[in-house]
């Protein structure tokens, strides 16, 4: 059994979607933990869901960064446990310095609510085992998803293989037209150097069953199932 903690801050809104999506994965159980008393002892993985924590005041994810849950998350990540941040969760992980770069206002200023394609660049993270080269289709819903970093950081992230997901067209071409928010190098998701912490702007929890229009999110979350880790799965297709 894999035990997953789903963190809830004031303004988090995707925690129940994640819990539902994880209920579809065999041998995974999840709990939603309030940020003020989140104790991650005994958990194998933690998820920081999307939302608008603290109303995006100061910057998206900035106030959540100094919550007790984020300090706990830092210890958890340093212990090598699995962490996934989606959308506002990705913004929080970048603000907290657990992931490189920062997420700023979309180029063009539009809030983008759409389905995108992204190519899995790395399968050596625990969240993407067996998915290298796969083109996943997932929903996005964000106004501040433009991933930026200075030139040196971008070069490091690329050379260390920390780009996990890149926006592409349906055939896997990383074109400018396929980039929904102006992210540098079409980056949709990155990992830390230890590869146990992954963040992405798209929403795997919103595309984990056919009823919702897609199952590619399940292919990411299913990596949490002990029996399925390492096997590309498509049982809901």
């Amino acid at each position, binding site marked *: 059994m894999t035990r997953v903690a789903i963190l809830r801050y004031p303004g988090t809104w995707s925690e129940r979607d994640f819990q539902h999506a994880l209920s579809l994965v065999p041998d995974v159980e999840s709990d939603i933990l309030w940020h003020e008393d989140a104790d991650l002892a005994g958990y194998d993985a933690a998820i920081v869901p999307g939302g608008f924590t603290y109303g995006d005041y100061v910057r998206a994810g*900035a106030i959540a960064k100094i919550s007790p849950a984020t300090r706990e998350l830092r210890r958890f990540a340093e212990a090598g446990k699995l962490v996934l941040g989606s959308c506002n969760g990705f913004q929080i992980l970048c603000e907290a310095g657990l992931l490189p770069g920062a997420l*700023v*206002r*979309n*180029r063009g*200023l539009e809030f983008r609510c759409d389905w995108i394609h992204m190519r899995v660049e790395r399968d050596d993270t625990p969240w993407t085992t067996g998915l290298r080269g796969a083109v996943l289709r997932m929903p996005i819903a964000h106004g501040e998803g433009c991933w*930026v970093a200075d030139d040196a*950081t971008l070069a490091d992230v690329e050379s260390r293989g920390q780009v996990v997901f890149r926006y592409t067209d349906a055939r896997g071409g990383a074109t400018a037209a396929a980039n929904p928010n*102006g992210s540098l190098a079409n980056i949709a998701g990155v990992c830390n150097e230890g590869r146990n912490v992954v963040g992405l702007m798209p929403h795997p929890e919103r595309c984990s069953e056919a009823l919702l229009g897609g199952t590619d999110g399940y292919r990411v979350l299913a990596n949490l199932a002990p029996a399925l880790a390492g096997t590309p799965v498509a049982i809901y297709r």
Partner: protein
Amino acid sequence: MTYVATIRVLPKSEVRDPQGEAIRGALRSLGLAVSDVRTGKEIVVTFEAASEVAARDAVRLMGTELLANPVIEDYAYELKEGAAV
């Protein structure tokens, strides 16, 4: 001692500021010869500190830990003694 810090946060010069670009376009549509606009925010904090040195340390902590993200933003501040007007 009560201090008032006025902290101004702006995107780093190499970071694109799409909000500033939108404002530039709008100001140009007023017929003005506007070449560049940068947007940021000003935050006024009233707080207690034992001395001016301690107050400046506190403002730097505010700036680096919360008010500005050093990846994308710079900040500057002015510090005054006494309550805000």
